[in-house]
C-alpha cells in the first residue's frame, strides 16, 4: 500500500513536472520554427538564458534553506553599473574590478544572511529592504544614470565564445560558465553543506540537534545568491552592455523559475537541477511567445496563468495523502 502510494507520489513528483514542462515548451518552439534547433540559434538561446539559470541556482540555495532573496535583481543592476563606473573603459582595470564586484556580492549576501539569521528578520523583509537600499544607493552614486563604460575584456564572458565550432558555430563562454557553475551547484548540494542546507530547510530543529550550524549554512546560502547575482551581472553586462534598467524585476522572474522547478517556498524540497530547468522553461516560454508572435502586451498574462497553473498542479500532487507514522498512538 505504502509502495503504491509512493509510486503515485513519484509519478506526480513536482520535480518531474518541470522537465515535462521543458519538453512541452521546446516541442512547441520546434513546431513554430524547427530552425530554432540549428546549432547557432540554440547556442544564442543558451547564451542569453545563462544568467537566469545561474541566478536560479543561487536563489535555490536561499529558498531551499527556507528563505527568500528579493534583492538579486537590484544587485545585478548594481553590479553592472559598478563595473561600468569603475572600469570606465580601461582594459587594465577589468580584473581588479571583477574582484571588487565579487567582494561586493559577498558582502551583500552576508548582510542579508546575518540580518535574517542573527536579527531574526524575515528574509522577505530583509531582502526587500536590501532591494530598496541597493536601488537607491547605486543611483545616488551615479546621479541617476550609469556612467563610464565597460572594457572589451569585461564583455568577453557574456558576449564572446569559442568561434567557428562545426555545427554549433559559436560556443558561448556564458554557456560554459553556466554549465560549470550548474555542475558546481549540483556537486555542492551533494556535499555536507548542501545536505545540511536541505535538512535545515526541512526541519530546522532536527538539523540543529544533529549539531548542524543552521544559521551559518543559511547565511552562506545568501552569500551564494549574492555571488550568483554577481556572475549574472558580469554575463548580462557583457552580453548587452550598460543600461539604466538592467536587472529590473529580475528577482521575481528568478523566484518564479525556481518555484516552477518544483522547489517549495518554505524550504527543504526540490533539486537545484530542477530549479535551473525552471529557469530554462521561463526563457523557453519567452522564446515561444516570440516565435508565435504572441502580442508583446499579452505575454505577461499567459506567463502568469501558466505559473499559477503549474504550481497549483504541483501543490495538488504534493497534497496527496502519504502514510506518515503520525497515526501511531502516543501512549501516556
Amino acid at each position, binding site marked *: 500500500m*505504502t*509502495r503504491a*502510494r*509512493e509510486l503515485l*507520489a513519484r509519478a506526480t513528483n513536482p520535480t518531474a513536472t518541470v522537465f515535462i514542462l521543458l519538453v512541452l515548451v521546446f516541442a512547441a518552439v520546434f513546431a513554430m520554427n524547427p530552425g530554432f534547433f540549428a546549432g547557432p540559434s540554440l547556442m544564442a538561446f543558451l547564451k542569453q538564458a545563462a544568467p537566469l539559470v545561474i541566478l536560479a541556482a543561487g536563489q535555490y540555495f536561499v529558498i531551499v534553506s527556507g528563505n527568500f532573496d528579493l534583492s538579486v535583481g537590484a544587485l545585478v543592476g548594481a553590479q553592472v553599473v559598478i563595473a561600468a563606473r569603475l572600469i570606465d573603459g580601461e582594459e587594465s582595470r577589468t580584473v581588479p574590478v571583477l574582484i571588487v564586484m565579487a567582494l561586493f556580492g559577498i558582502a551583500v549576501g552576508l548582510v542579508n544572511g546575518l540580518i535574517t539569521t542573527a536579527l531574526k528578520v524575515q528574509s522577505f523583509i530583509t531582502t526587500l529592504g536590501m532591494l530598496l537600499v541597493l536601488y537607491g544607493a547605486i543611483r545616488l552614486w551615479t546621479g541617476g544614470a550609469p556612467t563610464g563604460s565597460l572594457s572589451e575584456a569585461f564583455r568577453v564572458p557574456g558576449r564572446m565564445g569559442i568561434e567557428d565550432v562545426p555545427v554549433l558555430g559559436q560556443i558561448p563562454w556564458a554557456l560554459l560558465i553556466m554549465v560549470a557553475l550548474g555542475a558546481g551547484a549540483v556537486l555542492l548540494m551533494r556535499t*555536507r553543506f548542501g*545536505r*545540511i542546507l*536541505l*535538512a535545515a530547510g*526541512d*526541519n530546522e*530543529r*532536527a*538539523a*540543529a*540537534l*544533529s*549539531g*548542524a*550550524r543552521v544559521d551559518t549554512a543559511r547565511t552562506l546560502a545568501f552569500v551564494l545568491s549574492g555571488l550568483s547575482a554577481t556572475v549574472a551581472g558580469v554575463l548580462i553586462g557583457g552580453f548587452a552592455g550598460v543600461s539604466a534598467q538592467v536587472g529590473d524585476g529580475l528577482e521575481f522572474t528568478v523566484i518564479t523559475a525556481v518555484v516552477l522547478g518544483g522547489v517549495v517556498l518554505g524550504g*527543504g*524540497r526540490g533539486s537545484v537541477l530542477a530549479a535551473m530547468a525552471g529557469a530554462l522553461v521561463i526563457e523557453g516560454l519567452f522564446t515561444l511567445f516570440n516565435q508565435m508572435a504572441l502580442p508583446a502586451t499579452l505575454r505577461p498574462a499567459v506567463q502568469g496563468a501558466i505559473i499559477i497553473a503549474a504550481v497549483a498542479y504541483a501543490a495538488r500532487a504534493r497534497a496527496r495523502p*502519504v*502514510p*506518515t*507514522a*503520525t*497515526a*501511531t*498512538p*502516543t*501512549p*501516556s
Partner: protein
Amino acid sequence: MTGPLLAMRGIDKAFLGVPVLSAVDLTMEPGEVHALVGENGAGKSTLMKILAGVHTADAGTIELDGRAVSFTHPLQAQQAGVASVFQEFNLLPELTVAENVHLGREPKRRMLIDRRAMTESTAAVLADLGVEDLSPAAKVGTLSVAHQQITEIAKALSQGADLICMDEPTAALADAEVELLYRLIGRLRERGTAVLYVSHRLKEIFDLCDRITVLKDGRLVDTTAAADITPDDLVAKMVGRRIEAQFPDRLPGTETGEVRLRITGGGNDRVDAIDLEVRAGEIVGLAGLQGSGRTEIAEAVFGIAPFTRGSIEVDGAPIRITKPRKAINAGIALVTEDRKAQGLALRQSVRANARMVLDANARVHSRARLARVSGLLSSLDLVARGEDQEVRFLSGGNQQKVVVAKWLAAEPGIIVLDEPTRGIDVGAKHKLYSVIRELAAEGLAVLLIASELIEVIGLADRIAVLHDGRIAAELPGGATEQQVMAYATGRGPE
C-alpha cells in the same frame, strides 16, 4: 435522567495492526470524577482520544445520554458535550483568555461579536471555577502553564461540556497549582460535570476520584469505587509482567567498565541536585512520571537546556556542554523523545537522515563512518524501499531505526535514549531492545528514559527514579514496578 452519562462498550483499537485496546468498557455518571489508570502503554490516552474524537474506534459503541454517537472529528465530540484538555494546549498565545475561551463560538449580538458578553461569560465561568487571579483580558501567551490549563478548562466548560477529559493535568503543575486544580474539579463535580481523569499519581486519584478504571495491555482490568481499594492493591492491578514483553538478556561478555558520564549536583530551572553516573557497558534507566524531569536531564546532558549548577564529566574529564555540537563532539548521542519534531527531516531520504550527524559535524565526519552507514541501517533490519526513500513514508518503527542509525553512525561513547520505543510496533520495539543490549556489550554507556516502567526494569542495570525534578531513589535492576511506582508517585518506600 436515566442511565449513565457515558457508556463506552467493547471498544477495540489497533494501530499498524498492533492492538492497543480490546473490548474495553467505560461508564460514567453525571458529576462523577472517574480515574483512568494503568501503566504507560496500557491504552489510557488512546481510550480518551477516542472519546474526544481524535481517534476513531475500530469496534464498539459509545452512548452519551443514551444516544449512540461516533466521532470522527474533535468538533463533533465538543458539540456532543465532550471536551478534552490535552497536555499540548489548543490555545492561541496572541489572543486573550476570553477570546480563546470562545474561539469559534463567539457570542453574537446583531451579527456582531458581543465582547462584553464574551468577557462577562468568561469571568462567570472563571468565578464559577473559583478562580479569582485570572483576568479574561489577559493575553494567554503571558500566562503560566497552570493558568493556560485553567483557560483550557474554562473553554471546555463554556462549550457546555458535561464531560471533560483531562490527560495528566497535573504533569506540568507546581504543588500550589495542583491545589487550585483540586478546587476546580470540586466545582465541576458540584456543577454536575463529569470528569475523566487520566493520571499516574495515586495521591491525586485517591484525593479526587469517585471511581477508578484500571487498564492493562489495552484490556479492562477492573472498575471499582475508590473507597473500596487501597493504593497498593491498585498498583498491583496496574502492573504485572506482560506476555509480549520479553526482554533480551544481558549479552555475554558485557562488562561494566570505567565511568563514562558523571553528573554531580546537576541542576537548572527544571531539575535539581542530580547526581548520576553511567559506566561503559552499563544501561542506566531514568524512571519517573511525565514532567518529573526525565527529558530535562537528557536535554541538559546534551546541551539543549544545559545545567546551570553542578558539573558533568565525560570519560573522567570535566566538560561544559553548552550546545548540542559540544555534546556530539564529546561523543554523546541523544535519541530525542519526539522523532518527528526533533529527530528527522521527514522529506529527506533515509540516507540523508542517517548521515545527518556525520554531515553536520566536521569532527565526527569521516569516509570510513559514511561507508558504514548502509551496513548500520541493514543491521537494524530497516524496512524501506531503498535508502533514497523519503523517511515520511516509513512506519514509526523504521523511522526510529533511522534516528538510531544516524546517531550510531557517529560512533558515540555515550547514548541517551529518550522514549525510544514510543509509538512503534512490537517488532521494532524488540529490535531496539536487543540493539540497546548490543550497544552496552560494545562498551557504550547507555542512559535509557522510558515511561514504560517495564522497559526500564527489563533493560536497565540500575534505575534512577525521578520525582518532581529530583532523584527520589536509585534502585537496582531487579526492582519491582511497585517499588519504582512508589518513589515515582512520591509515596516513598513501603
